[in-house]
């Protein structure tokens, strides 16, 4: 059994004729201990998909209209509140983009880690355990750090504390939503290295949301590329980076600056991500696609397995 199995998830914002489809038929599975990257531009539905795993998108305004999210074989969308609270933190933990904003400014960091322990491992809610966790995430002098307030720490330190909070309950799945976007490059590398290291030591799965393709190669086993609420390509990370199949993925890769590339102008994808509720008919990437054909605008293409483990939502991938 897979740890996580998202099947044909459909989620609207709003109800009735004004409903906006934010997630449209996303399917994704993750095995135990696997690292999957969710890649895509801003506003393509990565974050709401990830938050849906613990049903953290408030309903309303969100409205789940179809599909299922199986976490350990149990459908999160049909779960009673009590069980939902147990899996939040207990099975799946989150690390968010801005570490400074994720920590409560008025509490000492030691207490915030302890709070996570109290909820899920009440017998381990001790200073010793907090110190052990801070050591685990590589915070120097944890004995004195537990009495710090978040504002007394740097961004990288804060993110390490957030990771400690997330790890305290020993989750099976860690969802990291752009964990390094707010940090500078050297700290980014440290945090990613930490995540990689922790994954191997603790054997948890990581769902890493990013729009940085550079991270994908270092971290991921598999990659899902999202565009306008849909998964457009799903493939093992190495193969995807070596040979992207979907035109959108290709365009994304071309937009990454290359060291050997010299001084020529960076290629960018023309146009913008279509606004939610204003998707073009047919293939949603068609208006920006370099290889678009007239029939692309007629019908939304299916996500099909074109090679072993490689799924693409484009009939003209060759």
């Amino acid at each position, binding site marked *: 059994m897979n740890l996580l199995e998202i099947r044909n998830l459909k989620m609207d914002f709003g109800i009735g004729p004004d409903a906006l489809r934010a997630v449209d038929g996303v399917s994704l599975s993750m095995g135990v201990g696997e690292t999957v990257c969710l890649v895509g531009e801003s506003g393509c539905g990565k974050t709401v998909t990830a938050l849906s795993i613990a049903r953290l998108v408030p309903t309303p305004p969100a409205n789940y209209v179809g599909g299922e999210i199986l976490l350990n074989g149990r459908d999160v969308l049909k779960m009673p509140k009590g069980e939902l*609270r147990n899996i939040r933190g207990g099975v799946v933990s*989150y690390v968010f983009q801005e570490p400074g904003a*994720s920590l*409560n400014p008025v509490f000492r960091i030691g207490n915030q880690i302890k709070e996570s322990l109290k909820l899920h491992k009440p017998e381990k809610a001790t200073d010793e355990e907090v110190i052990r966790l801070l050591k685990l995430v590589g915070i120097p002098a944890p004995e004195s750090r537990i009495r710090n307030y978040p504002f007394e720490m740097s961004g990288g330190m804060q993110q390490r504390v957030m990771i400690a909070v997330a790890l305290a309950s020993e989750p099976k799945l860690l969802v990291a939503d752009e964990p390094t976007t707010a940090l500078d490059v050297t700290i980014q590398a440290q945090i990613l290295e930490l995540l990689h290291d922790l994954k191997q030591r603790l054997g948890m799965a990581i769902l890493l949301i990013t729009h940085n393709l550079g991270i994908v190669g270092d971290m991921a086993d598999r990659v899902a590329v999202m565009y306008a609420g849909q998964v457009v390509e799903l493939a093992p990370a190495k193969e995807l980076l070596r040979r992207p199949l979907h035109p959108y993925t290709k365009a994304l890769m071309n937009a990454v600056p290359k060291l050997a590339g010299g001084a020529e102008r960076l290629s960018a994808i023309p146009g913008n991500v279509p606004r939610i509720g204003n998707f073009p008919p047919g293939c949603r990437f068609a208006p920006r696609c370099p290889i678009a054909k007239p029939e692309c605008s007629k019908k939304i293409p299916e996500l099909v397995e074109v090679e072993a483990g490689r799924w693409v939502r484009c009939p003209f991938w060759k």
Partner: protein
Amino acid sequence: MNETAPIQDRNAEPPLSPWQLFWRRLRQRRIAMAGGVILIVLYLVALFAGFVAPYSFDRLDRDRFFHPPTWPRLSGFHLVVPRYEQLPGSFHYRAVPDDTMPVHFLVHTGKYKLFGVIPATLHLFGTGNENYPVYLLGTDQFGRDVFSRLLYGSQISLSIGIIGILLSFTFGMIIGGVSGYFSGWTDTVIMRLCELIMSIPALYLIISLRATFPPEMSSSQVYAMIIIILSFIGWASMARVIRGMTLSLREQQFVLAARSLGQSHLRVIVRHILPNTFSYVIVAATLSVPYYILGEVVLSFLGVGIQEPSASWGNMLTAAQNTEYLRNYPWLLAPGAAIFVTVLAFNFLGDGLRDAADTKS
């Protein structure tokens, strides 16, 4: 993992907590500190009223109605008070020359109960002789010592402010937090209710609420009633402000982070959102205490609050309603001065707290 541990300077001062920073900024504000010190003194005196007051609040001196204030003066090494004799036919008094009695400190005179439970007879000062009373602020129309009644009255007037604030702010915070956090129809219902309460002029509301309680009640029942009435009116404005702050706080990522750990809605509100409003709440509470004190004064002044012979600042002022009395016996206004000082002290302290809590200044 390559450790890049910063070098820890062991002699460095530990970083200041937000409370330490707050305290440091508050200390720089002299007026606020003065207000704070005055309040501490007032509350200490109220706590030990039985000890500081030379007489009981209901002791009647039938020979000395409207007795003027007697101030001890220094004679040799002793503080002495003169004896006053009443001029015939009126409530006018005259000090008898060369007939004095020394004032002693820590004397055993009338019985009282310290904190309302411990029986005691020790008083801070007194002459121990009924014919040589020490009436620092004179007596009222029943010959009761105004100073002693002022102290006993402060127990009621000052504690109503604090207890009322605790009650109404607790409710206001929780209700406002729930309202802002859940929004939607919960919010609409609660906020319309707040507006309803706030739209009725407070004085009418106080009096009509008073009418819902039975006219005859014991002193402690009246005390509880006043607190309930004032809190019932007071929670609404607090709830509105907290609701507004919650609306912005709930969008903060740490709320989502707390939810993602599996914390319940109520726990997120109480543990994570409301503590972020404390710096505002402490200031607002300090600035609001005077309204509760004044609320008690109004109720008692109108004769529907604390009943005689119990003393409160409000019902003591009732005696000063009469202009005839006011002209002849101005010391009856002493509770007014006490209210003035208390309200001013709370406002000074509140202003200082607000400045200290405002990190932008």
